[in-house]
């Protein structure tokens, strides 16, 4: 499954330098279709930078990224979203004054067609589209386990856990093939983390999603991942199945420091 043709995303020797600092250094990496892959590493290892490279927020200094065999290196974030990659953020970035449902509707932006004149004149096809998008946003909010009461509430007024769920719903709204989750369990208790783990399995099974995960909670990582990639100082130091990673001396060293 993981060899060659089966991969949905491939990164080929991707680097990103900020001035003299090499945040990501020649990382090669691929994600098999319908896999759940985790990126782990100590703080400052370049995990989020790598995410930002994949989603177009940063342009790689060198290297190549392909998604579904299409070159997306340095493409604009909205194009990449349209191509089928969606993400959440480490520190939740909802549109705070918009209601939960409006947030999810923004997620559907790239799947909609109404432009300036369509929005003003609102012909029947625009009305239909608007209605369908609202309906789908409602369904997506139910799907991530949110009650109907929160639909019209401003995102800023939601509880932390609900905000996390709305963010996932917003990402799902763009009908992605690949979902990038940046530390989704941050601030969650063990029960919530466990339910997120099973939710990821459910996403893969029911929506054919491939998931790339940045995560610090090792229990979640070990439970859910098919494969783990370890970054340290911007470099890939290890890659493999959870059991291999657990015993890899370089990984232990990166996390705990060198022994003796």
């Amino acid at each position: 499954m993981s060899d060659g043709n089966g991969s949905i995303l491939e990164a080929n020797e991707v680097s990103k330098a900020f001035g003299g600092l090499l945040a990501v250094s020649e990382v090669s990496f691929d994600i098999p279709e319908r896999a759940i892959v985790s990126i782990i590493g100590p703080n400052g290892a370049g995990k989020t930078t790598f995410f930002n490279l994949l989603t177009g927020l940063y342009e790689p200094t060198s290297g190549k990224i392909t998604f579904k065999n299409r070159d997306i290196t340095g493409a604009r974030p909205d194009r990449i979203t349209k191509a089928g990659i969606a993400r959440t953020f480490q520190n939740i970035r909802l549109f705070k004054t918009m209601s939960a449902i409006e947030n999810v509707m923004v997620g559907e932006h790239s799947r909609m067609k109404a432009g300036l004149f369509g929005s003003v004149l609102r012909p029947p096809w625009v009305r239909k589209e608007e209605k369908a998008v609202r309906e789908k946003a409602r369904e997506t909010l139910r799907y991530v386990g949110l009650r109907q009461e929160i639909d019209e509430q401003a995102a800023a007024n939601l509880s932390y856990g609900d905000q996390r769920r709305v963010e996932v719903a917003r990402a799902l709204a763009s009908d992605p093939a690949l979902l990038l989750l940046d530390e989704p369990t941050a601030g969650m208790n063990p029960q919530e983390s466990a339910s997120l783990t099973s939710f990821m399995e459910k996403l893969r099974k029911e929506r054919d999603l491939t998931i790339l995960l940045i995560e610090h909670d090792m229990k979640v990582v070990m439970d859910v991942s098919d494969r783990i990639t370890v970054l340290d100082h911007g470099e890939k130091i290890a890659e493999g199945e959870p059991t291999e990673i657990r015993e890899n001396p370089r990984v232990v060293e990166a996390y705990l420091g060198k022994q003796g």
Partner: protein
Amino acid sequence: MSRSGVRQAIAPLETRVVREHGNLILAAVLLFAAAILPFFYPQSSGFIDDCVTALAYVVMALGLNVVVGFAGLLDLGYVAFYAIGAYSIGWFGSSFFDKVNGAKGIHIGVSGVSANLPGFHLNFLLILVVAGILCAAAGALIGIPTLRLRGDYIAIVTLAFGEIIHVLAVNGDSLEIGGYHLTQGRQGITPIDRVDLPFTEPFTSLNLRPWFWTALALVAVVLFVNFRLRDSRLGRAWIALREDEVAAASMGVPLVRTKLLAYATGAAFGGMSGAFLASYQNTVNADQFEFAFSIFVLAMVILGGLGSIWGVVFGAIALSFINTNLIPDVLTPRAQDIFGQGFDLSELSFGIFGFLLVIMMVLRPQGLLPERRREVELTEGGVASDEALFEVQA
């Protein structure tokens, strides 16, 4: 079913009707009330005159509201679009180009006196289209250099753009292209064709009612567009990028396109109002297009409440009447009693507006009739971090 049962059953319906059509009902009532207003005043009363100006300002303020209120792009050069709109009618609705077509002029859909004058004379409706297109293009043009900027820097670039247009208007008198000067600077282009709609006589300055109704019709159109855009795919995208550009882009909102559409839409309305005002005042004069005017329109938007459509309408009418009525006719005579006959409070009017804005920022930063979102933004403890407040200003 008991009485309270019935009430409970219809309550959701009632709120739904009010929620979905509330603004439509309110707009219909207000526009109708405004439409019959001129019948209570003489045809050329000073009050109707002030009203026409106020309505033209409402159009401008609602246009600026799209840029600043919806998309959160601070524009300090909005006067540029007033100027471009005014010159659209100055060029295509006067005898400015007096040598075209062997000095016989080119006339499209005009009647009355202008039909025999040299120069371009387009029907007012065509001029509105021309002004809208020219300004939308100029708006997109000014948008391009600001795309990579944020907050204060956008303000600086737009301010410079407004000043460039002003200086061009003033010095355009010396810019000769093919035997014509670009503008007539401070001397002004005059006379301008009066508004000439199909099936009506050209308007005159003796009867201000048709001017009033034309301005009101423009307001109705701009109101409609504002409401439609606010509750649309584009409106959501604007709010999203106002709040968090990075997140908006990551959710599939194309930043360049979405921002340019905001600039172009706002600019088009500024231009239409500018063309109307030029016709109404019968002159296009470079002195009208000073920086202070940009601030004047921005103050209307801020006073009413950024992004709040009804708030902006209210802010524009209030400031316009303070400017044309309260300061010169009410406050100045009082002040003259104290400071002597030579005292003209109008010269301090921008000081007064500035003072009003400062008071607003201290007491009610969300505006007099705030939009629901701004209220969340400014009053919810968690949201009003330094960053959020900075974004509101920027």
